[in-house]
């Protein structure tokens, strides 16, 4: 009996679950496996996957893979960096429009999210007008010259972003054909629609948005190729018995789809608060948030490259995240920051970091419910160090002579719950709110206490929502 498995690969954790798991007892179902989660810095994807599949490796089956690699590949420059070909005169345009931080006045502003080094950006002499008509035709001789430069750089992936290519793609198509024939993988901006994109604010539209998406796609292709190789290695020597399906870059899109779609049919939609290990997000049941079929997917056996979807909807990331650092800012008390620090070096509870995070506050107060793949990482000895650090951070409170670090942790817990509640307030949510994600069980009592007027309900197997959701697109097709 073959398996159908969902594999969710995040920045630090991977989780695997059967599509049709009804019980964690693997002995009762020949086609299922125990859901499992592992910490990628300790056990790589290949080892973890091989161990999780175990004896079923020879039986074969399907693996549906979704990954947050799209976000990470871009931010962390994973995979091979692509070259970017752009209309001459605009080689620096993308870099100059990158977001500047901090948002408030600062003597040292820094531009963030620059997608490429400028020595990988090349101008192409061509120009289309605002209506798509040709002002300056593309000269194929320029491409030959460019070819020699790209060969020197040893890059095999190219992103192409020409002005007004969405109105007239003929120049981009010419470039794509030219380089494709010479063995390059080419992504063109006219293939991507407008909308929000990583690294750009919603109001920044037009060519910049399209170009960024094109570059993202080029990055992600390379990163996904690495990912696929790791999965292939895990399945060796029975690779041919497994069908691998790659899906959208954003797993939460599928979490939403898995839960919204059946509910929508019964006109019973309600919002989702996803409290995953790596990300807290709110998914609202409006037309924008209900995803349709995956935009592209491919069979790992038949296709030379995994298809990707960087136009996935964007679940609303919350102002507090599981790895938000607890820091001393303007206020004379430690508070959670809005940005996630990730799991490198990880929360203090993992024993390596010196800075407490939201997860540490829950751990210190003994609020963390057991989480598969995480509980073994928690170091009981670090609890005392977390309280000690909170005490140090709170020492500067004016007029306070005696500080109880547990009281600080409790205040922080209330603040964290308030921050989650702010999202519910902003959207004037009422009635039932469903919770998913590995941390949902830990937060449910806090939310119930904070908002007794709302009904918080854990979805079925909430802890495995991400891996289970990976299988949904195929099932509902």
């Amino acid at each position: 009996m073959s398996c159908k498995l969902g594999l969710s690969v995040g920045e630090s954790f991977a989780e695997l679950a059967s599509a049709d798991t009804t019980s964690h007892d693997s002995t009762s179902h020949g086609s299922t496996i125990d859901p499992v989660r592992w910490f990628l810095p300790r056990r790589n994807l290949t080892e973890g996957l091989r161990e999780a599949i175990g004896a079923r490796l020879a039986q074969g089956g399907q693996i549906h893979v979704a990954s947050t690699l799209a976000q990470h590949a871009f931010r962390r420059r994973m995979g091979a960096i692509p070259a970017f070909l752009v209309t001459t005169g605009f080689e620096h345009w993308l870099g100059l429009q990158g977001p500047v931080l901090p948002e408030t006045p600062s003597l040292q502003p820094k531009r963030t999210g620059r997608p490429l080094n400028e020595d990988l950006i090349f101008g192409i002499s061509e120009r289309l007008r605002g209506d798509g008509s040709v002002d300056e035709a593309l000269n194929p001789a320029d491409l030959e010259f460019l070819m020699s430069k790209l060969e020197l750089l040893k890059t095999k992936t190219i992103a192409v972003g020409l002005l007004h290519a969405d109105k007239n793609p003929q120049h981009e198509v010419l470039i794509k054909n030219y380089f494709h024939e010479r063995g390059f993988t080419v992504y063109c901006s006219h293939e991507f629609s407008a909308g929000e994109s990583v690294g750009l604010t919603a109001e920044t539209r037009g060519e910049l948005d399209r170009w960024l998406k094109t570059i993202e796609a080029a990055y992600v292709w390379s990163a996904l190729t690495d990912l696929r190789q790791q999965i292939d290695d895990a399945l060796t020597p029975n690779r041919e018995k497994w069908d691998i399906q790659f899906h959208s870059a954003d797993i939460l899109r599928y979490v939403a789809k898995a839960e919204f779609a059946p509910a929508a049919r019964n006109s019973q939609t309600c919002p989702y608060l996803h409290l995953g290990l790596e990300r807290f997000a709110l998914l609202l049941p409006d037309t924008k948030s209900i995803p349709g079929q995956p935009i592209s997917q491919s069979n790992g056996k038949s296709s030379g490259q995994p298809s990707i979807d960087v136009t996935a909807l964007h679940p609303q990331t919350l102002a507090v995240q599981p790895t938000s650092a607890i820091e001393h800012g303007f206020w004379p008390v430690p508070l959670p920051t809005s940005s996630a620090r990730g799991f490198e070096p990880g929360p203090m509870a993992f024993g390596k970091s010196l800075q407490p995070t939201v997860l540490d506050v829950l751990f210190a107060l003994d609020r963390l419910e057991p989480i598969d793949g995480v509980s073994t990482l928690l170091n009981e000895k670090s609890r005392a160090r977390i309280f000690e650090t909170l005490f140090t951070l709170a020492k500067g409170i004016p007029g306070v002579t005696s500080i109880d670090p547990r009281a600080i942790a409790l205040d922080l817990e209330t603040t964290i719950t308030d921050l989650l509640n702010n999202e519910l307030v902003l959207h004037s949510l009422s009635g039932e709110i469903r919770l998913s994600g590995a941390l949902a069980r830990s937060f449910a009592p806090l939310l119930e206490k904070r908002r007794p007027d709302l009904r918080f309900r854990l979805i079925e197997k909430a802890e495995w929502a991400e891996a289970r959701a990976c299988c949904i697109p195929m099932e509902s097709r």
Partner: protein
Amino acid sequence: MRKSWNFSPYQTASLERLLQRLLAAFERNSAALILPADAKALYVRAKRPADIATLPAAALQCLQYVPLKDGDIAICNDPFAGGTRLADVSLVTSLTIDAPDESFDLLLAVRIPFPPRMTLSGTLEAEGVRIPPMPLGNSGRLNREILNVISQAPLAPADFTKTIEATVTRMETIRRALKASGRDPNSDLRKSVCRRYLQDCKAACKTVTSRLTLGETTVTTNLEGGELLKLRLEIIDDKVIFDFSGTETSSTMQMTELTTFGACYQALCAVVGHELPANAGTFQLLEVHTPARAWINAKSPAATTRGAGDGMALVSSTVLKAFARMNEAYRVGASAVSACRVQFVFADGRLFSDTTPGGTGATRECPGLDGWNLWLDRDTEALPTESAETSFPLMVKSVTPRAGSAGRGRWAGGQGISKSYCLMAPARMTWALEQVNEKAEGAEGGKPGVGCEILVQHEGGHGEKIKLATQGELDLRPGDIVRVHSGGGGGFGEPSTEENKSV
């Protein structure tokens, strides 16, 4: 309330995060909440520094002239009734928070930045339609007659009605969220907590500003036309005093007193390196004195568009210069001041307005940033090229860092930007530059950045590039090319010997 907070700052910080999150829904627009009973700004989310003090003032002006009940909406853009420039329109709505133990009123104000119209006439009316505080709707519903009258005025911004409608819809959403939060028995949105928030802000801000070096200093800067900006900065125990006595009048650059306050506030924030909450609590730590008739305290009917742009940057830059004179830790290369705004008005009345930001100054630790206005509104972000070319008969030929514009130094300043436009239809161009001759200074031996300039190359003019004066108006024909070169930022520290040799 349920909470048993151990430390008051946790409660006030939690209230702040709630207001922050709700007002963040306005994205590009500045937004503010005001306690009308106390006539105090509770929380200002200023996307542009000019709005820091002006937006609460506009809300209170609206309340003074329009009796606002729960859900009523008022509008105004008059710079002399709490505004900044006519292109920045304020919407104000009132809401009653029905908390379980007490009810209280709030004003919610939002500012919408439309593309500004720049004129050299020096009078306000030439810059757009002037809207004094007036009612715009009741119970969340817009009065479309008033909206139509405004939108049909000759100088009304494009898409006025559509933008106002969208913003009012969003205001209504946030108004409902605030009211719902007020009804929540566990919420911190209480009058008593709001008042304590202001006190806590003042106290926390005092802790931050107490680290500033005490003393006083005087600095001066000249406008492009030679007019003086004089600042005496004095830091005493619990106050930072900005005294602009001695500042002259100007016929070309004018800004309101409250805009000047915002410029001082943002420079102080940059110096202390903290995001200070902007509200009545923290405002008390600043004292800003502006002499009557000085260009930083303009009176009606002065035109304020240039003042709300380059004028603000000049004041903030001067404040930073004063701080740096009192404490060398704040010494940095100066940033280019001018946003190099150019506008093209086409025959059909369409207005294209764009800026080209200069470079920022280098600091002790890092080089300056290319093409970023340190002090100016965040709306100086350039338009996407495709949007500009689709909406207007022009082509943007190139946008590149301006080579050689940055001030040299151990760390170089940020480079200015070179941007070229090619006109495809007749248009009248208006431009105004600042700090063309007085360049962005370097610090600690760093060299100054290159000043800004605009060149025009007429179609059929044999490639001759004509350098334009610092401000003016010019009729352009199809095929004419306008090149805007913004200034570079000042460098920091002596340039290396190697570099000196090569130069």
